[in-house]
Structure formats: structure tokens, C-alpha cells
């Protein structure tokens, strides 16, 4: 390192680049959100008909001696439900952030591109007509994925004709989603036996989610999340437009198709477990964008964490206010729809 040649070297260009404040605050923010998730999870587990103090929750979680009944509530019911919420939130947030980046459309998200509706209809059909596909079973995400891919791709290609307009993608997605959801409702009429369950799915609910659901979900997260985070650089180049991305050596069509598939995989497997929880995949990435900027290398991980926190918080609110009688999808829609309108009005004004 100290091989001095006697000539003072010019200051390297690299050292002249000012540090990026957005990058500097990324890690602290990420850690803060992760901590917030842990704290919220403890409060969340304590919440319910039998309420537990944070101390009791922690004691039960780390297998300290507690009442058997408490341990059962924590381990068999509330903890797995909380974990499902966190995982689903992360997957939907990541899917939304990827879709927004590769379509260069701030209104893209799993629900607004029809992916969720497609996954729901495929799942509902699967459960109604293929008896072995019990809700939450390990095969269901595959069926949901097929539905998500078909519908998502349809909406994408419909919206690409002519000049691409962000609103057009959302409109097509909402329209096709509405048609598909009515399809799901028809199945529901013919299948009264499971009707209540299917309705909850159209809205999206975490009620009764236990370890079996978590066990179906985590392998998909384990594959999808690292894959998505690893493709952040790719997503960044696509965000500069097709010509620039090609100029940077990207095979644009293939890269976009690959990232699209990863996003649909994340969203569909999440939807197969909890149903079409709306708007969360739209809001999470937008909040994250405000926090850490547009660079996908920070936006993607931040979206996963923020959306996980958001979904856990939504379910917390549902539990606290309605004692769990409302599905969490109802409250995300209640909070999310005005936000969606705000995004549209802001666009129209600009």
C-alpha cells in the first residue's frame, strides 16, 4: 500500500464523491423498523380475549415457566398468526415495489395489476373443484401462482399497447380484478358450505392463521425474497426506460419478465395463504420511497420491512378495536383507498 513513487498522486475521483445522505440513513431506518416489528409483535401477541402483559408474552416465547394456557395461546395461536402477517406483509410490499419499478408506474401493486384477483380466483376454483386442495394446503400456492401469472400478464400486455399510461395499467387491473372477483363470488354461491371462508379470502384475513399456514408460506418467502432483493440492480436499470437499460447491456424483455415473475410469485403465494389483502402492497413501497428514495437497492428491502410493519399494525388495530371480528383486509382497504385516490389526484394535478 505504501509503495511511494515520490510523486504525489492526484486525489482519486472516488474520494470526491459526496456521501449520499439517503444511503447513510438507510441502515438505521431499516433497523428501527425491524425493532418496531419486534416490539409490535410482542404487544400484538398480548392482545386478545385473554390479554397478556409484554412480560408474560416474552416469558412464554422464550419458554420460561408460564401457565400452560398462556403458552398455548401464544405458541399455538397468536405467534404464528403474527409471523404470517409479517411474512405476508414483506412479500406483498416487495411485490409492489418491484411492480412499481419495472412498469415505471407508481400505481402498480399486486391488487391493482389483477395479480391478487387472479390468484384468489384460481385458489377458490381449486378449493371448490379439487377437494385435495384444502385451504392453506401446501399445493395451493402453486394454483394461486398460475392464476396470478395469467392475469398479471394479461393486464400488463393489455396496458402496453400504444403509449403506456400509468393510469391505464391500474384501470385495466381494477376492471379485470372486479370481473374475476365476481367469478369468485359465483363459485361462492354454488359452494355454500365454504362460503364464509371464501368471502374472507376475497377481502383478505389473518383469522385462524396457524403454523400449518406459516409452514406452507415460508418456503416461498425463502425463495422469493432473496431472489427479489438480489435483482435490485436489474430493477434499477429497467427504471430508466427500455432504451437506456438496453444501452447498459440489459436484455430488457427477459429481465422484465423475470422480475415480473418474481413479484407475482411473492404476491400469489401470500394471497394463497391469507387472501387478497388490498392496498398494502401500494402504500408500503410509497412510504419507503419517501424514507430512502428511489434506488431499488434500498427501496426493495425497505418496502419489505415497512409493509410487514404496516400489515402487523393493521391487524393489531383490527384486533384492538373490533376484537378480531373484522378481517384485516377491510381495514387496509379503508385506509388504502383514500391513499390511492390521493396518488391519482396528485398525478392528475402534475
Amino acid at each position: 500500500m505504501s509503495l511511494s513513487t515520490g510523486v504525489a498522486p492526484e486525489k482519486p475521483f472516488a474520494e470526491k464523491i459526496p456521501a449520499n445522505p439517503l444511503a447513510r440513513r438507510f441502515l438505521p431506518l431499516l433497523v428501527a423498523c425491524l425493532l418496531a416489528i419486534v416490539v409490535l409483535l410482542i404487544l400484538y401477541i398480548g392482545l386478545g380475549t385473554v390479554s397478556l402483559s409484554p412480560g408474560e408474552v416474552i416469558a412464554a416465547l422464550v419458554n420460561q415457566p408460564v401457565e400452560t394456557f398462556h403458552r398455548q395461546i401464544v405458541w399455538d395461536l397468536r405467534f404464528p398468526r403474527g409471523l404470517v402477517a409479517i411474512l405476508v406483509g414483506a412479500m406483498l410490499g416487495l411485490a409492489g415495489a418491484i411492480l412499481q419499478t419495472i412498469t415505471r408506474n407508481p400505481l402498480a401493486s399486486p391488487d391493482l395489476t389483477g395479480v391478487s384477483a387472479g390468484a384468489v380466483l384460481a385458489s377458490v376454483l381449486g378449493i371448490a373443484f379439487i377437494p385435495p386442495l384444502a385451504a392453506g394446503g401446501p399445493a395451493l400456492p402453486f394454483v394461486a401462482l398460475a392464476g396470478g401469472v395469467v392475469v398479471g400478464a394479461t393486464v400488463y400486455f393489455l396496458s402496453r399497447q400504444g403509449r403506456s399510461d400509468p393510469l391505464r395499467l391500474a384501470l385495466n387491473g381494477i376492471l379485470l380484478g372486479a370481473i374475476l372477483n365476481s367469478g369468485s363470488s359465483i363459485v361462492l354461491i354454488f359452494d355454500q358450505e365454504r362460503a364464509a371462508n371464501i368471502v374472507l379470502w376475497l377481502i383478505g384475513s389473518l383469522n385462524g392463521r396457524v403454523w400449518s399456514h406459516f409452514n406452507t408460506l415460508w418456503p416461498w418467502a425463502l425463495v422469493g425474497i432473496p431472489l427479489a432483493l438480489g435483482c435490485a440492480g436489474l430493477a434499477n436499470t429497467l427504471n430508466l426506460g427500455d432504451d437506456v437499460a438496453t444501452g447498459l447491456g440489459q436484455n430488457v424483455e427477459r429481465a422484465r419478465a423475470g422480475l415480473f415473475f418474481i413479484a407475482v410469485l411473492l404476491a400469489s403465494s401470500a394471497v394463497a395463504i391469507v387472501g387478497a389483502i388490498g392496498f398494502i402492497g401500494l402504500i408500503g413501497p410509497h412510504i419507503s420511497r419517501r424514507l430512502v428514495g428511489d434506488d431499488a437497492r434500498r427501496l426493495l428491502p425497505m418496502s419489505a420491512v415497512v409493509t410487514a410493519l404496516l400489515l402487523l399494525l393493521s391487524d393489531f388495530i383490527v384486533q384492538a378495536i373490533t376484537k378480531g371480528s373484522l378481517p384485516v383486509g377491510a381495514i387496509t382497504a379503508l385506509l388504502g383507498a383514500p391513499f390511492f385516490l390521493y396518488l391519482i389526484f396528485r398525478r392528475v394535478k402534475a
Partner: protein
Amino acid sequence: MAAENVRVGYGEKIILSELSLEIRRGEITALVGPNGSGKSTLLKGMARLLKLHSGTVFLEGEELTKMANSEIARRLAVLPQAPTAPAGLTVGELVEQGRYPHAGPMRMLRKQDHEAIGRALELTGTLEFANRPLENLSGGERQRAWIALTLAQATPVLFLDEPTTFLDIGHQLEVLELVGQLNREQGMTIVMVLHDLNQAAQYAHRMVVLRKGSIVADGAPAEVMTGEVLEKVFNIKAHIVTDPASGRPVFLPYAVVKNEEVGRGQ
């Protein structure tokens, strides 16, 4: 770099057919011509942004279609017309992406990448606002940031498609001065589509004039900027004078050629 018998267009619509052009190393070549003449199409075809229907483009003797896309990106950088980025992206983040074709395993930026990024920012004078989001920049600053992106690619050849569009005259000259400087000091081979003939004549070593998909004039500005070419290609009558400072030709248009006039032989 050369194009041989290329046929390019949008979808089924062919804009250029059987066109050949050789780009000389170390020169600034300006592609000029009226709207719809195919100048941008030629640039895009040579830079593989448009697929060729037939013909071949060679980059340093190699066929472009037989090279990996990332290999091309290490030798040829291209800035399309009016590019757009996410509004909140900062200049530094934009320029970093120029290193994508060079990235190593895990796509992590290495020492030489940061060096190239810093150099690109310095050369374009964008170092001071590296942390500003693109939306907060003036048109000229933003265009310099985009050029910095292509410079971070560290290629010997740079293609620019109308780099001065939507800029006011001061910012136009700022961008063209930068192009001239990159050519002089870094020895870059530059091909650019320009709308303004006087600017092309002032900054380019060679002007290639296109009309309706064919090359109608090709040479040094003094050879190409003639009354005859202007009349034939742009339907204008103009005085051609020589800028005493640069020795380059400048045209002053004074009339439009009307078709009847041509017919009456006036």
C-alpha cells in the same frame, strides 16, 4: 464502427433500407436531416436499440448481433432522446448505474467503479450536485447528469440522440462544449443526432446528411454545408458564410423553396 446495408424501421414500417455508414475513430460525427429523414433511426439501429431487419453493424470489427449485450455496453454507450428516470433518483445514483455492465459478482461496486463514477461526475461538472434528485435540476444540469451516466460506462464510443432537445440555447452550448471536450481530451468517438445545422457544423468533424432514409451528403462541414445541399434537403435558400473565429460554415436562411418555383425553373 460501421453499418453495412442496414434496413431498419419501427415494426413493419421500414425507415432506412440498404444504408451503409462507417464511423471513424476519434471523430465527432453529426447525423443531420429534416424530421422523418431517419437520422435517429440510424443511430438507434447502430446502437442495437432497434432491431435490424437486415444488414450488419460492426463494432471494432465484430458483428454486433454476435456479441453479448453487456459486452457491447462496455464498448458503446448510448443516450436516447429525452430519457426519463424516477423523479427522486439522485444524480449520483443515476450515474452509478453506468457501472452495471462492468459489475462484478453480486453486483457490488468495486474500487474501480467508484473511480469511474467520480470521474464521470467531475468531467460533467455534476460532482457538486451528486446528491440532488434529478427533478430539482435545470434542464442542462439534468442532461449533463445523463451524459455522466454514459461516461461512467467508460466506453470508447458514445452515441447521443438529440442531446440538446428541450434545452435553452445556453444549455445547448454547454452540452455541446462538453461533447467537444470529451472528444478532445478523452479521445472518445462520438456520434450524435443534431437538429441544429449550425451547431453540427461548429462542433462536428463530419456531417452526415440524411433525407428520406438515404445519405445525401457526407463530409467535413465546409463540404456539406452548401446552398445546394440545404436547398435539396431542407427546401430552404440560405447564405453560407464562414465564422471567422472557427473557420466553420454558418448558414443564414432567407427563403423557403416553393415547389412551383422549382417547377417554373426560377
